């Protein structure tokens, strides 16, 4: 499977959805024959052919159609490129996802600056098709390419004292013009409890729809936590820090009554300004019910045993 490097990729090359779907069917057919040749390598992009990575707790939703590429790459909340959801696709051309360094800091045996090319070599990316539920009550189904965050974490050997992981987005108003407006306290910061970060569902995504991440989707590396609201999925990460105390994430800092640290998808706890009971899947007319933990309860609910779900909004 060929994944192009970002500098080879142009918007004009976007495969129309119909062609893309045909190609998938073709590849699925070929995949049977190719079983055993699971990993291909190209210029530092290591990609596994494992469509069986579709993870879902609700079998009925397992075959949810994927949201069209066009929607996934033009409807984005990425305030670093503007607050309107159409703006990141228009403005994110200024972001330079190469060269890129991810700093690993804090309570770990192997802190340091790591080149994105090395990271891509160390951690083979596979396809994960996840539902994506925004706190604004819309949702998508997205084929990510990535690797479990826990593989990344294990490599840097955090100390047992580290209880949380904190992530930081690039801070550079030249590349991210939205940072000139003080709508949020830049740079964007997110965090996870260590057990959440180590959950096998939690990903570092580096690709989408069999391409490297587009800038507006958080190139070159971003977080994906499918049972949490989308804003936890911090984009264009430059720093990973192992810490003892719970990080203060950007949206919690901005509006603590509306966004907390946990942000677990929960239809029973409304956002103060709208209901979270239903969501509109992008491309559909009628709203559908939202599932607790976005349908991933079996894999994650145990982590929150004994906690008051009302504090996990």
């Amino acid at each position, binding site marked *: 499977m060929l994944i192009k490097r970002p500098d080879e990729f142009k918007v004009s090359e976007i495969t129309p959805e119909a062609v893309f779907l045909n190609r998938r069917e073709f590849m699925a057919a070929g995949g049977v024959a190719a079983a055993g040749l699971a990993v291909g390598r190209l210029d530092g992009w290591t990609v596994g052919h494992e469509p069986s990575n579709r993870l879902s707790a609700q079998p009925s939703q397992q075959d949810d159609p994927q*949201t069209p590429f066009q929607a996934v790459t033009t*409807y984005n909340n990425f305030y670093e490129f503007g*607050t309107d959801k159409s703006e990141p696709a228009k403005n994110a051309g200024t972001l330079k996802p190469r060269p890129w360094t991810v700093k690993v800091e804090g309570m770990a045996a192997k802190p340091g600056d790591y080149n994105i090319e090395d990271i891509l070599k160390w951690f083979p990316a596979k396809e994960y098709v996840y539902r994506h539920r925004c706190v604004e009550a*819309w949702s998508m189904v997205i084929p990510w390419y990535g690797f479990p965050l826990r593989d990344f974490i294990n490599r840097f050997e955090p100390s047992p004292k580290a209880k949380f992981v904190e992530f930081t987005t690039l801070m550079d108003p030249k590349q991210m013009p939205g940072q000139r407006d003080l709508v949020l306290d830049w740079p964007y910061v997110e965090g996870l409890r260590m057990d959440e970060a180590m959950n096998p569902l939690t990903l570092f995504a580096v690709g989408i729809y069999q391409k490297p991440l587009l800038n507006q989707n958080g190139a070159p590396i971003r977080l994906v936590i499918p049972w949490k609201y989308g804003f936890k999925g911090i984009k264009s990460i430059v720093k990973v820090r192992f810490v003892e105390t719970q990080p203060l994430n950007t949206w919690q800092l*901005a509006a603590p009554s509306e966004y907390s640290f946990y942000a677990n998808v929960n239809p029973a706890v409304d956002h103060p*300004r709208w209901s979270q009971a239903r969501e*509109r899947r992008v491309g559909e*007319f*009628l*709203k559908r019910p939202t599932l607790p933990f976005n349908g991933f309860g079996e894999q994650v609910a145990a982590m929150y045993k004994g906690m008051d779900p009302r504090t996990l909004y």
Partner: protein
Amino acid sequence: MTRSQFIRFVAEPAVFAAALVPAGLIAWQGFHGGLGAEPIREIQLRTGWWALTFLMITLCVTPLRRIPGWNDVIKLRRMLGLFAFFYAMLHFSNYIGIDQFFAWSEITKDILKRPWITVGFVAVTLLVPLAATSNGFMIRKLGRRWGALHRLVYVSGALGVLHFLWLVKKDTREPITFAFILVGLLALRLRRRAPKSAKPRTEGATPREPATASG
């Protein structure tokens, strides 16, 4: 062509056509996939924005008559006000019939529980009696009370801006711009009224307005 002919045969049709452009554009883009990934939300945002914009334009009429003295714009006011109502109704119907698809229990909960929706609902509701009494018959029938009733437009405008302000997640620049415009338009009215009350009922330099023209 006389002034009144110009208004009647040029200005009025031109304003009418221009005011339909946003709705036409929404419809055209809607049928051609031009409203983005969430067309229903896009329609909601745009119709709301135009309802507020037409309210503001309507509120410009009185200052334009008083300050540069463009008295004739009064002839466009009813149409502009009705377009504000038209876009507010599109906004409201899109919410009820498309976004919520008549899920009455959800709608009731929204209106009762969520202050930003409550104020939006009140803002739209207040426009109904104004639209209903905008015809010549009702103007004559209500007489002086017509002017008093139509001052509700200020309340509706203020609630509409508040609705927008409370809706946005973080970037408040646009609703705050609307708020400044509204406050400015209201301030222009106060400034001009003050001297009048100091000298009541003089044979003034400015002709006294008929009751129907207040606002």
